[in-house]
């Protein structure tokens, strides 16, 4: 197994172009599990830790550009106020030790349907900044996940950054697991309210081959919410929202949970996160 250690972003892109089969490694918290359990040894590892540019984040026009090397711990500490949904999900990733090393970009690279960052990224219409020696492009998050552990990156592309708009309303995340730490989500859900455009964003995790949104649920809820009067959400509306979220999923039975449980739990999480978000919006 070769170990490639570029020290600049340009060198990293050149290395990936030359060795497209190389697996990028940042915190290592996902890649190393596969190596330790001998589930497959990559032909080469491309260590992105020495690339200093990736450790920065910046802010422009209401968007944050989070470098691929920013750890969950730093995201929570430094960006939690502007990205509450992603920060909440980040606080549930792995364990404190894992959060010190793991990154959102790593979660995207791995593209596991159970990754915790995916639902809030979907709910807030994030963009993935992919780059290769051929150039740079922005991939809308909804087009990024292609299948179980498959994403839209070309073989010569690396993730440079994730771009997420500042929260323009309440955002909440919920996940089900058997332990506080180190849980691979049985299923998870994120909601974001966008009062400026009277819209609703959703993200479902671990309940389909890829993380996905629940477009019908979003459209329904956006039309039902009393954005101006801020009156309470009728139980019937919340229940229907939960149903539509659950209907958007296509979960399977596996070691972590059954299909039926996931469908049920998603509806509960959808109602619950909506309750939290609307309470915050009403300012009570």
């Amino acid at each position, binding site marked *: 197994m070769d170990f490639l250690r570029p020290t600049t972003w340009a060198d990293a892109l050149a290395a990936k172009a030359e060795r497209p089969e190389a697996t990028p490694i940042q915190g290592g918290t996902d890649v*190393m599990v596969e190596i330790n359990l001998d589930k497959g040894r990559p032909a080469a590892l491309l260590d992105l830790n020495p690339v200093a540019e990736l450790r920065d984040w910046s802010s422009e026009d209401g968007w944050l550009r989070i470098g691929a090397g920013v750890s969950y711990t730093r995201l929570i500490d430094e960006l939690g106020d502007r990205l509450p949904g992603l920060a909440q999900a980040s606080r549930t990733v792995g364990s404190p030790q894992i959060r010190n090393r793991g990154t959102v970009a790593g979660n995207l690279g791995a593209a596991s349907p159970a990754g915790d960052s995916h639902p809030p990224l979907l709910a807030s219409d994030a963009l993935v900044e992919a780059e290769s020696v051929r150039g740079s492009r922005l991939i809308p998050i909804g087009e990024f996940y292609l299948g179980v552990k498959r994403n839209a990156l070309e073989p010569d592309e690396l993730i440079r950054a994730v771009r997420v708009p500042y929260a323009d309303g309440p955002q909440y995340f919920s996940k089900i697991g058997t332990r506080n730490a*180190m849980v691979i989500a049985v299923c998870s859900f994120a909601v974001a309210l966008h009062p400026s455009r009277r819209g609703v964003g959703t993200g479902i995790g671990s309940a389909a081959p890829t993380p996905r949104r629940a477009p019908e649920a979003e459209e329904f809820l956006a039309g039902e919410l009393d954005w101006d009067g801020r009156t309470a959400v009728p139980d019937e509306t919340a229940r229907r929202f939960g149903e539509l979220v659950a209907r958007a999923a296509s979960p399977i039975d596996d070691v972590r949970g059954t299909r039926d449980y996931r469908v049920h739990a998603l509806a509960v999480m959808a109602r619950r996160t909506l309750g939290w978000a609307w309470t915050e919006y009403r300012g009570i």
Partner: protein
Amino acid sequence: MADIRMRVNGSIEKLDVEPRVSLLDALREHLGLTGTKKGCDQGACGACTVLADGERIVSCLALAVQYADRDITTIEGVTSPLQRSFVRHDGFQCGYCTSGQICSAVGMLTEHAAGAPSAVTGDLATMEIELTAEEIRERMSGNLCRCGAYNGIVAAIEEGIR
């Protein structure tokens, strides 16, 4: 093979390891520092927790070559009042998780001192987060103790911070 240098518990160590060797295996097998334990080898148990430049990480999910020229502290290099309080409060039974628990607690206290919130912190704006038993349990949730000495561990950490 890769020739690297690493500062471990204050002394510069030379290592000649294959790129696939984890930091945990490098410490245990190459440097003979067996205080750091291998539990699950997949990041779930926390027994292999060490400090990298003061930050707690699980050494099983770290490649040794990624930590070239970094400063690693293992339990052999820790001197903390926590060690006595773990003994006083029976913060263990078999002891296998203890070195990871203590390294993790040392890192946790540094994070807390820097104002880092946890998943159970209510008011995120507050600068002075009180380390209640609930906060300690959440912040130590990356370390399992299969003997179930959690009450002793929490008590030891509570005493250690007083």
